[in-house]
Every structure is written in structure tokens, then in C-alpha cells.
């Protein structure tokens, strides 16, 4: 809330992630800033997740548009994180919108698999209720001080968290008719 360093027009939005190793890293709301295809992304340590959201709210970002997570377990590419952010397996991503300036910001934070828990934004943005429940359901990340952290899309008795990368997709084995007999009565799939 205090560090509102006016990061004005000198950074053209066109420069890519490689070229932003400029002398001092860009900051906003006390977070490191990076750009992904011209969209502004803030990176915050996990313990500042709540306070950054608080600062955003105070600055007029009144709506939490979206909150989701990504499991980077099997990510093959290069993760474009700014210096000083250690990549972890999970990443929680939230998008905030400011209606007066018509601006939106994406905030990402790293969550390790050993401590899969993060502050809930429910008090600040009650609309995050369902979104956090979905992340809990799909990724098994827990949210501190959420009023009703329960499964939302999967049945309550479900085991496992489907959107984790180590959760198998599962499939029904296809059995072809007449595979035991070798006479060629017809190829293709039996129905």
C-alpha cells in the first residue's frame, strides 16, 4: 500500500521477459513485476499474499475476477519468474480488476508441496469463496481462514485432487471383439 512507485511510461509493454534485466527490477505494490505478452504480472512471496491483496483493494482494485492455481510438476519450458522468486510446484494466480482505471493485474505466488497452504482472501474479496474452494478441490491447496473449505465440484467423498499433474487421467481399457481368436473376421474396433 505504501510502495506505489509510479512505474510510468518508460517501460514499453512490448519488451519481452528476456529484456527486463534492467538495472533495478520494476516493482509495484511491493512485488516484482514481469510482463507476459504485454500483460502485467506481479509476483509476491506467499506470506505477503494477503497484504498485497489488501494493498490492491485499497488502491481501487475492488473485484477479484479470478483465482486459480497451476501445478508446475511436469512443466518442460522455462518458467519466466523474476530474480528472487524461487519456483515451487504450485502457483496460485489471481486476477484483480479496477473499474475506474479499467486496469487489471495478475498476481502469482509460489506454493510448495510441503506446505500447501495459503491465506484466504475471503475477508477482502468474498467473491473468492467459490474460487478458493475450487482450487482446494482440484489441487488440494488449503486456504487459511476460509469459512467453508470443502469440495465444490467433486463429491465430498472423493479422494485425490484431479488437476494435480500426478493425478492420472484414467481411461477405460478398450476391448476389441475377437482379439482372442486370430481369424480375420474383421478389423477395427468392436462396439
Amino acid at each position, binding site marked *: 500500500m505504501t510502495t506505489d512507485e509510479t512505474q510510468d511510461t518508460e517501460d514499453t509493454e512490448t519488451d519481452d521477459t528476456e529484456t527486463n534485466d534492467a538495472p533495478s527490477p520494476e516493482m509495484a505494490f511491493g512485488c516484482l513485476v514481469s510482463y*507476459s*505478452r504485454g*500483460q502485467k*504480472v506481479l509476483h509476491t512471496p506467499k506470506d505477503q499474499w494477503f497484504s498485497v491483496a*489488501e494493498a490492491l*483493494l485499497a488502491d481501487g482494485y*475492488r*473485484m*477479484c*475476477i*479470478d483465482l*486459480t492455481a*497451476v*501445478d508446475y510438476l511436469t*512443466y*518442460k*519450458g*522455462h518458467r*519466466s519468474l523474476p530474480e528472487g522468486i524461487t519456483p515451487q510446484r504450485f502457483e496460485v*494466480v489471481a*486476477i484483480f480488476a479496477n*473499474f*475506474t482505471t*479499467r486496469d*487489471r493485474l*495478475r498476481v502469482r505466488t509460489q506454493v510448495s508441496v510441503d506446505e500447501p497452504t495459503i491465506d484466504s482472501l*475471503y*475477508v*477482502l*474479496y*468474498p*467473491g*473468492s*469463496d*467459490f*474460487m478458493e474452494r*475450487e482450487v482446494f478441490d*482440484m489441487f488440494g491447496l488449503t486456504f487459511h481462514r476460509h*469459512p*467453508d473449505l*470443502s*469440495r*465444490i*465440484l*467433486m*463429491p*465430498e467423498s472423493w479422494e485425490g485432487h*484431479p*488437476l494435480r499433474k500426478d*493425478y492420472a*487421467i484414467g481411461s477405460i481399457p478398450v476391448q476389441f471383439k475377437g482379439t482372442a481368436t486370430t481369424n480375420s473376421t474383421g478389423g477395427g474396433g468392436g462396439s
Partner: protein
Amino acid sequence: MTITESDQENIDQPEKPVGQLHLLPHRDNVLRMSEVRMAETANERIVGETDQTMLMNMGPAHPSTHGVLRLMLELDGETVVRSKPIVGYLHTGMEKQAEALTFLQGGTNVTRMDYISPLFTELAFSLAVEELLEIEVPDRAIWIRMLMTELNRIASHLLFMATNGMDLGAVSMMLYGWREREQILRFFEETTGLRMNHNYIRPGGVAADLPDGWQEDVLALTAMLPARLDEYDILMTGQPIWRDRLQGVGLFTADEAIALSTTGPILRSTGVARDLRRDEPYLNYDQVDFDVVVGTFGDCFDRYAIRLNEIRESIRIVNQCVEKMPKGDWRAIDAKVTPPPRVRIDESMEALIHHFKIFTEGFKVPEGEVYAAVESPRGELGCYIVSDGGSKPYRMHVRGPSFINIQTLPHMMAGGLLADGVAILSSADPIMGESDR
């Protein structure tokens, strides 16, 4: 919006200025009870917290829940005290599925989310992929996308008119709404090959050019509709019974709507003029003339009237699209993304191989993450894609406006009658396929 902000500051200064939770007067009217516990109480034949109240399920197979939404209600007589919407009955793991489909196949997946307005999910998905690819879409494709999505918005709102009418007892409206929607679906079928789940808008453009004689078809639609909308006005808008049923029901304030991340007609009914088509113009919405329809009271009537008038605005946009439709390519001429034309395949081996590779392996998308949003008939529909440089999305997330708007139901229903709950549910217009994904 600024007025309400400052008003709110003045009203509650005492404590807890932190956060927006205190802006929700009905925050305690959200029932926080697990489904298992609810099932247990069915045997006990009781009870909420006092003996006065009764727990009851509405849905998941109630006709006015528009699919498979279940509401757990705590009733005091006929008054709804607390409620909890339960979603997930239509969950089919589409976000997980998306990770197993290439970017080209992804369209067939996302189009099945919001099955009433499928073109919008396709559009959000395509915009996100194009942003990752950093390709330019030709002008004609952009205008075709606008034309088709606006027609889809009309069809979606007509369906709302139909179901909203039926939920409230205006059963003939069901037939009229369906009749008009059918005309639009017929044009969709002619253009895309299917009445719904089109997979028409694809990364790089659209799947096919508009059919011959499309202008006449579209202009016939836009000529027919205004008179029909006036009929709806006679049938419903001015009717005292209709108004009694809707006015002052399901009141919702701008602060509540913003705090609950509500978008679309529900947010606009509270007086917040937020429409992505105007606020963050995508496609060529900055080149057409239209108004953002806004309500005043945030009741069910406003939500009805907003959608009715949004149809009129969409007709204006469609007419401008017909007028301004340029000639040219309808998909990007980028060999990386676009398969070669059919004629080339017959004469060139390389073209055949190229075609085969695009449809079997798919095209590679540079790594990165991106969020693209469009204004669907239900609100902000966003698509967040993370790519690791392969031909399949590493992660695809869709922000379904229905999913998030369903959160508002306990707040709107608190203190109202159960019969009004049906009106409120109907006016929120959730599509469960998109909510549950």
C-alpha cells in the same frame, strides 16, 4: 460507482474497514453445512438451529433450476433464512481434458462448457491462444466473430426470456422465445454446420467463411426481431402481474455485487456500467456503436429488462457488422497455424503432409501464460492458458461467469419467499455446463 463507495464509507465507519466482507449484509445467510450432514438431518426429520426452521433441498432435478443446480434451503415457514447452492453435478473434468487435447482440438472441448452461448467460450479460448502465438487475425475474421457472437448473445438472451417467462408462469413466452431462437440457430447451422457446440471460432480465425446469401439471412433476422421484442413488451414488461412478481424481488446492491465478483447483467442491474465490450474492447467493438444497458434497483425486473434491451443493442451491432463486413481472408494466413487450402492438398505433396501434421501433432505454441476475457451473455468469461511450448496447453482454466454468479444466490434470496427464490434463480441465469465444467 464512486457514489456508492463513499456512501458506504460513511455508513460503516465503526470497525472493520478492512476488506469487503462487511459490505455484505446477508453474509450470515449463507448456509455452511456439508452435504453429508444435510443427508443425515433428513433421517432426523429436523431442523436448522432452532425448531422453527426446516431444511429442504431444491434440486438438483427441479425444472426451474436450469440444469442440475441444487439449493440447500433453511426455511422458516415459507421464508428462506439461509441457503447454499451446490454445484458440481455436471462436472466432467473439462479443464483436465484440455491438457490432453491440442490447441486445435481444444475448441471442441471448451465449446461444450456454456452450451447456450458456445461461441463465447470458443472466442475466449482462441483469443488466449492467439495472444500466446502472437499472430494477427485478418479483419474479416474479426468481423465474422463479432457477428456470430452477437447473434449468439441474442439467442442466449432469448432463451433467458423463454425460461424466465416459464418459471414465472408466462408459459406462452417459452414458445415465443424458443421460436425466435430457432431462427438464429438455423443460421448457425447453415454457417457452422451445427446448431450448438460449433467449434467455429478457432485459433487463427474461423472455421469457414459465411455462406452465400448470409446478408439476406442476417438482415431478415434483425428485421424480424424488433417487432417480436415489442410483443414481449406487451406480453410481459408492462403487465402488472409480471411486474409484481419481479419488482423489488432479489434486491442486490452494487457493493455486494462487486464484493462477490459478480459480472454481466447481474452487476449491471445494480447500476455499475461494466461491459468488457466497451471497457476493454476486444475484436472491433471500438468501431461499432452501442449502449451499455444499466439498471437502477438491482432487482429481478432490472435483470430481465437489461437482457431484453441488450437484445436490442445486439441487433444494432449485428446490423453494423453486416454493413462493415470487409472482404478478404477469414483466417490467418500463417502456415504454422492454418492448414493449407483444400485445392492445394490435391496438387502438392507438401501441402498434404502439412495438413496431416497440423491435425495430428497440432501446432506448437510458445511458452508463456496469458489471460483473455470476453463479455459473454452471463458476464466476464475468461480463459487462462499456460503453455510450456508444446502443442497442448499445459494448463487451461476457464473463468465461468455462471460459477461465480451462483455465489450471489444466498444473498439475494435471504429473507425472501421461497416462490421468489425461483424468480431470483431464474434471473441469475446460470448455465450449469459452464459452472461445473
